[in-house]
């Protein structure tokens, strides 16, 4: 059956006029950054020093500095506990987040290696569960730091000695989740029955924390996250975070964080500041109540077809792409997709920030495992730091450099009362016919299950397409459905004086819609 389908589809499509395909390799070079052989080359963090050198932190705890001019690495610090973020502050100081703390690394005698590992803050709980990662660090204009804490997984239990007070709300006691994997009589498989998929029983797991300068106490800034691996502070001091598909998270997503609010993943409701859960297991709260309360994601990245494990968010540097109009865009990494990562286009409808995802560098040689993204000092290159931990990623580092040769790209994706507009960086042609646009819509359910199927999936008929200079307008026959994801494949043959279209598949999350539809 499946083979028949593939044959029919391939035959029909190969019968069309030769479809143009865009080659990222004509506009970017991809070089491997060699990492010393003694280092497990899984990258947890990348940051830029004022002099253009790159600071990288690695899985086994090394912090190394890379000089792009000499292509040499030097060891700055080591022994850290799974550092998953490095940040260079405004004064040029190096900070790292590791499982137990934010550490400022001082080189007081200026010999090129850190001699003081200062604990800036240790103010969060650790249960010893393997999945409790610590991510970050971003800084706002006032010098406050923000980090995000992953939740524990019911793939395993917790240790006897923990840091922070255990929260046993709903009867989920420490004893209940205790697991000694050296004890042959203990079976976690038996013990785990009835334990939520992800849990947050020690302080602030699943939360974003704000740390004020010079203050070792952390403040809960927002709750409701599962494995928030990508934090980003934009130019307007607004915080964004990407979360990973799982229980309560229908697909990898992107949030614009609302201070003090709950963002959907229930485990961290125990630590909420506005309205903490004090009398039941959070997963047992009626979904309607949770749904009403949560801040919605601004964008979904449908699992597997769009993304697998969204990671770091960065702005789009105008030196890295053939346009200066990059304010509406971001790039995001994806740890478990290969030879592609993600673009995001911000839109605003009736006061709701929402937007569209697309693939970038698709079928290029950027490889997979893309966990950390960092621009070079001049912005024309991007370093990709890769990891897998014990999942299906990759390792090492690549440097992607823009050749300067322009290509056709989208600058903005906007919802309209009747459909969408795509604003390109140059005049477009060969936009084809409505029939060439493959658009479907579906929605993702908010519930406790691991990921959501694509519900009410249906094809959308295109009633009109037109191009006016660099703006493509698509109108649909049916009104846009609020809360649906619009999965839109534009024809690959759309072209311009620069090139054919570089990214043609977009996923727009229409949390809000315009009411009039003609």
């Amino acid at each position: 059956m499946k083979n028949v389908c593939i044959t029919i589809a391939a035959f029909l499509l190969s019968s069309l006029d030769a479809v143009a395909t865009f080659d990222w390799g004509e506009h970017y070079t991809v070089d491997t950054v060699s990492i010393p052989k003694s280092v497990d080359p899984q990258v947890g963090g990348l940051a830029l020093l004022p002099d253009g050198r790159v600071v990288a932190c690695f899985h086994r705890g090394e912090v190394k500095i890379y000089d792009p001019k000499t292509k040499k690495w030097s060891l700055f610090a080591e022994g850290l506990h799974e550092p998953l973020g490095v940040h260079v502050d405004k004064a040029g100081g190096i900070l790292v987040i590791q499982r137990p703390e934010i550490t400022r690394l001082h080189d007081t005698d200026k010999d090129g290696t850190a001699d003081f590992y200062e604990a800036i803050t240790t103010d969060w709980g650790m249960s010893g569960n393997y999945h409790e990662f610590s991510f970050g660090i971003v800084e706002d204009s006032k010098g406050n730091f923000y980090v995000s804490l992953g939740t524990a997984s019911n793939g395993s239990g917790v240790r006897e000695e923990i840091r922070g007070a255990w929260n046993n709300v709903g009867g989920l006691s420490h004893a209940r989740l205790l697991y000694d994997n050296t004890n042959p009589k203990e079976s976690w498989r038996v013990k785990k029955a009835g334990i939520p998929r992800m849990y947050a029983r020690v302080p602030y797991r699943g939360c974003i924390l704000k740390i004020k300068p010079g203050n070792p106490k952390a403040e809960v800034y927002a709750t409701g996250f599962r494995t928030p691996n990508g934090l980003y502070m934009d130019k307007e001091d607004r915080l964004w975070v990407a979360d990973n598909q799982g229980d309560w998270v229908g697909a990898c997503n992107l949030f614009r964080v609302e201070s003090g609010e709950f963002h959907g993943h229930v485990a961290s409701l125990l630590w909420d500041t506005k309205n903490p859960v004090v009398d039941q297991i959070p997963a047992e709260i009626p979904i309607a109540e949770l749904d009403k309360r949560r801040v919605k994601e601004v964008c979904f990245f449908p699992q597997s077809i769009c993304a697998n494990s969204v990671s770091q968010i960065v702005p789009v540097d105008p030196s890295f792409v053939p346009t200066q109009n990059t304010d509406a865009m971001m790039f995001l990494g994806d740890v478990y997709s290969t030879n592609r990562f993600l673009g995001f286009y911000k839109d605003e409808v009736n006061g709701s920030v929402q937007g569209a995802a697309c693939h970038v560098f698709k079928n290029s040689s950027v490889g997979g495992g893309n966990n950390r993204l960092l621009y070079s000092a001049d912005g024309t290159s991007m370093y990709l730091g890769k990891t897998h931990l014990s999942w299906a990623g990759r390792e090492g580092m690549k440097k992607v450099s823009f050749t300067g040769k322009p290509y056709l790209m989208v600058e903005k994706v906007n919802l309209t009362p009747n459909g969408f507009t795509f604003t390109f960086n140059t005049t477009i042609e060969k936009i084809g016919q409505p029939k060439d646009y493959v658009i479907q819509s579906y929605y993702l359910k908010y519930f406790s299950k691991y990921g959501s199927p694509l519900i009410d999936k249906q094809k959308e008929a295109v009633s009109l397409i037109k191009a006016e200079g660099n703006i493509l307008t698509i109108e649909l026959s049916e009104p846009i459905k609020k809360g649906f994801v619009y999965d839109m494949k534009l024809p690959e043959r759309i072209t311009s004086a620069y090139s054919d279209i570089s990214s043609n598949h977009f996923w727009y999350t229409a949390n809000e819609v315009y009411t009039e539809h003609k």
Partner: protein
Amino acid sequence: MSYSNFFNGVLLGYAFCFTPCQSAEKQSENPVPIKKKENKKKSAKQAPEAFQLNCAACHISDRVSVGPSFTHIQEFYPKQKRKEFIEWCYNPGKRNPDMVQMPSMAHVKKEDLAIIHDYILSVKVRNPQPLSNVDDYPNKKRPRVIRTFLPKSGPASVLVALPLKKKLNLVWDTTQCRLRYISAGEADNYPYLKANGNALAEVGKIIYTEKSLFKSEKPPTYHGYKMKYGLPTFLYTVEGVRIEESITVADEALVRRILSKSTLPTLNHIAEDSTLTTKLSREGDKIIIIKHHF
């Protein structure tokens, strides 16, 4: 064939293939094969969507990740064991105590599990990595200071592998701000790394444990550590007194110097062990020296 019929045929092809075989849709995104510039190792065969959605995050073809590799699955579940494979997916047991527990695939239809099984069996793994303990980045140097999950200590602890012939190690707890124990033997963080944090580092044999040095009502505050010659000096505050505890070695002994600019808090009686000679001496009220001889 008229133009409109032709395009209807295309749409029909899509609609026909929509739900059960989305891999067709993916292939049709790029009907002209693109020359991939690298990665010749990659299998030309595309994993079925059911595998990508449910299994790919934890199972890779040629190495152990969260779960076993294809080689191991092929070994345990050849074609004749289709029934057992499906049963395992619905009701996963546990073969490896270090690995995290596989969640049930109860939400996956039997037909899809069969497709997944067929796919796994069809992949020829060229260089399978063994399920056994090979640390590609061994680190046995002394001194070394590593933070990891350690036995009989809190989750925010530090292992100090000392440069002594007897291979002594020290474990220091940053939450309780104190030495927890001294052990003897090779210390190895690989069990922790191999299990992605679901196992503890090995520390050898614990030969000395210590209670809290100072009497204190309130929990201490940890400030970090300085490094000199590869060994740490821990900085912490107990009962309002800022303390520096340096870890050094001299004449095959571990020497801890605990000092403060103000008067040290009241000392507890510390344990003495017969396998490790421990001598505590004071220099005024601001310095304590503890020597441990094996």
